[in-house]
């Protein structure tokens, strides 16, 4: 198992290097003079010179990359142009809040998706199965900002739940946090839940159609026992599906954060877009991608724990 994990982590290294190259390149995509477009036309020559040297723009591109990568690995992700603060601390603080939201949404999405997908797989032609099938295609299509707006509207009209932020002013309790978390988490979870439901239904139905399930019936095992075996066999694909949803959520919660004023990375990136604060955007994207790569390592490891065929 340790050797599996080591191998898998080694495989992640080139991916991480590739990710860093892509993130580095984005700043090179800025058309025209990057310094002018980042600082605006009224920048002082001193500020210009400072940015040029900080971005290393006066050196060859590979050197710039090496320099940038080296400082990034050391935790120096540059300085925010609009906020004039170190990007790393800004991003890390916000990312914690984003992870909280992503985790809550993921739990909702996987729990709901597994239940719905099981219903569809066990009773594909029943009325419930059809309704759930219809719900899942609807939820896959619905943009997270549409759901978020609807839920926000619900909060505004009923006053039952807070309409934004993480805490009421001056309150810090866990219950208060949960209240603030509920609607954003649901808004973020709807689409992944539909995808999980749909894909899990397919893999569970696939397992149920396999020969060993018929053999288990012939051995007199109870329906509950057979479904248990089938679920176990559908677990590897559920892990894969879940990994994909983490990727979807890490990006998609941005809209939910903006609409519910959740103080996460998405909120930060949204503010950075209007000021074209590229270092901040780059750091946010880099951090999300690195986390996603690590999540995939975890998913693959869990996969190997479940399936002895993958272990060897």
């Amino acid at each position: 198992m340790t050797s599996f994990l080591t191998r898998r982590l080694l495989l992640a290294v080139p991916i991480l290097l590739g990710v860093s190259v892509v993130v580095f390149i984005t700043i090179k995509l800025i058309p025209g003079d990057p310094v002018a477009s980042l600082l605006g036309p009224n920048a002082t020559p001193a500020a210009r010179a400072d940015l040029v040297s900080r971005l290393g723009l006066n050196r060859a591109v590979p050197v710039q990359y090496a320099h940038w990568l080296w400082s990034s690995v050391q935790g120096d992700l540059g300085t925010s142009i609009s906020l004039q603060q170190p990007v790393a601390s800004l991003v890390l603080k916000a990312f914690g809040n984003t992870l909280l939201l992503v985790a809550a949404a993921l739990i909702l999405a996987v729990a709901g998706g597994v239940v719905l997908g099981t219903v569809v797989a066990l009773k594909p032609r029943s009325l419930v199965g059809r309704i759930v099938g219809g719900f899942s295609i609807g939820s896959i299509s619905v943009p997270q900002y549409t759901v978020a707006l609807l839920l926000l509207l619900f909060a505004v009209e009923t006053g039952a739940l807070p309409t934004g932020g993480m805490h009421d002013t001056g309150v810090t309790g866990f219950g208060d946090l949960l209240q603030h978390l509920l609607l954003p988490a649901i808004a973020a979870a709807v689409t992944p839940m539909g995808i999980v439901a749909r894909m899990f239904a397919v893999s569970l139905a696939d397992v149920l159609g396999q020969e060993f399930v018929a053999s288990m019936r012939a051995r007199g095992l109870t329906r509950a026992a057979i479904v248990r075996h089938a679920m176990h066999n559908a677990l590897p694909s559920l892990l894969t599906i879940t990994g994909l949803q983490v990727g979807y959520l890490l990006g998609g919660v941005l809209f939910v954060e903006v609409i519910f004023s959740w103080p996460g990375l998405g909120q930060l990136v949204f503010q950075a877009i209007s000021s074209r604060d590229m270092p901040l955007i780059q750091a946010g994207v880099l951090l999300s991608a690195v986390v996603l790569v690590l999540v995939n390592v975890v998913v693959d490891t869990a996969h190997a724990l479940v399936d002895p065929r993958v272990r060897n």
Partner: protein
Amino acid sequence: MPGRDTIRRTRAEDITLRADDTRQVLTVEGLEVTFKRRQGEIKAVRGVDFSLTAGRTLVLLGESGCGKSVTARAILRLYGRSARLGGSVRLGETELTTLDDTTMSQLRGATIGMVPQDPSGSLDPLRAVGAQIVEVLRRHDVEPDGPKARVIAAGLLERVGIHDSQRVLRSFPFELSGGMRQRIAIAIAIACRPRVLIADEPTTALDVTVQAQVLKLFTELQRDLNMALLLVTHDVGVTRFVGDEVAVMYAGRLVETGPVGQVLDRPGHPYTAGLLDAMPLPGIPRGALRAIPGRPPGSDEHVADDACALAPRCAFANAECSHHRPPLIEVAPGQLAACDVVGGVVPRSTPLEAAHA
């Protein structure tokens, strides 16, 4: 076999069978299996009669798609609601076609064991072999205690010729060969000492050398456990090796039944004769094999109830065959065949003669 003393019979079995019942264990009468499909109903089995006797083997022989596997699975009601059963299947005195689902499920694997066709797909790929055997032992109350059940499981593996049983119990199916997996499937099927064992093409997916070993195992187990064995195959050689009686099936019906030696040496139905002629024998050039022309009717094709289904492929067929379905009649003591035209033993040139012709 180890752990024999701890083996208890299931309650369902107490109802249906007395321990000393050595005669007809399972009786199938007029069995019909109809599948509902979107295009309409498909009659896969159209009235089949046979009975299984303790300690004897009946081979169900025929080409693919003639309904023999469907018959075997229908006995265990494995098709659930997707198929409609007609006629009667009796285990001792108990009618299985109308039995409640719970009792039926208790009978499966306990009183009636089944060995599936494909050993690679018959086991849960993610569970160790031992856990899967123990699961069946516990389900049928053979041994509710886990560690004790594991001891029985090891004994079962030894019984089917697996000698490093402790290692195999810990193994996952993918780590074992096809022959090994089939032995395990057999071990599970006999775990509860069933009165009836149904084996659906149990050697088809195996290497030739392994086939012989597994068939030998079947005959030994059957003798030792005094089981009634129903073996489904398309293989004339397998039939001769394990069978006491044979029932030849075509297009959902039996066309010939009788003692194996008698039927295979002196077939009374042109279809049986055709199967024999298509079998390669040592020393006979393959070119001398005569295949039956055409193919059996597919599941989506209509088969008239008042015609001999073989007529379009049969060298003996006359005009009458398309309007009249011949019943099974006795052509020799204990041997029944459904052919009016031949009305006795099918006249055949031996393959050797054919080769020299």
